[in-house]
């Protein structure tokens, strides 16, 4: 049982945990963070497997850019939701208790 074996186990365990949290944790922000973390674990695994090109691309595009896209998209959705909500309040059309569908 060498050091590299434990490193492999750590990386695999870390990436699987992050994948699980990213799909099944309750908070969406936490989920996106976990997704990016999974990308970093996977990058390290690919460096272990001598795939430098792929590792750089995963870090930049797979984890970095996709994470940024998800974060900004989530922010945009919150903004539209807030805008709509405030618009409703102003026009007094908000019907309480039935917007949850």
């Amino acid at each position, binding site marked *: 049982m060498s050091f590299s074996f434990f490193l492999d186990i750590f990386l695999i365990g870390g990436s699987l945990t992050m994948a699980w949290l990213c799909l099944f944790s309750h908070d969406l922000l936490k989920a996106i963070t976990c997704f990016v973390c999974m990308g970093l674990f996977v990058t390290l695994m690919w460096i272990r497997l001598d795939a430098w090109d792929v590792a750089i691309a995963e870090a930049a595009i797979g984890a970095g850019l996709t994470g940024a896209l998800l974060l900004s998209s989530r922010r945009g*959705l919150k903004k539209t939701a807030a805008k709509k909500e405030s618009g*409703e309040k102003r026009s007094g059309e908000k019907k309480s208790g039935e917007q949850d569908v």
Partner: protein
Amino acid sequence: MMLSQLTPEIMYSASGIALFGIGLLGLIIVPHIFRKILAINVMGVGIFMLLVSSAKRANIDADPVPHAMVLTGIVVAVAGTALALFLVKKINDLAPSEKSQ
């Protein structure tokens, strides 16, 4: 199974399939669109892991063809993710005031 059979190649391949499985499970049982998009990305990463790990053999250089395939796959995945997020944004912009389907 013998522990001696547990080469890094098998371990990483198995973790790739595990990532695919976790992603598939999330895609089926979690209803929120963001999680479905994340799940598809996790599944993709699992497949890329399988490709990269099968490219690495003991004693010879890594096979560059799967690496090139993974690079292509990463770019296609980010294109699909961005398209999905853009559609979500437009659906939300067009939504009646209940903000959900």
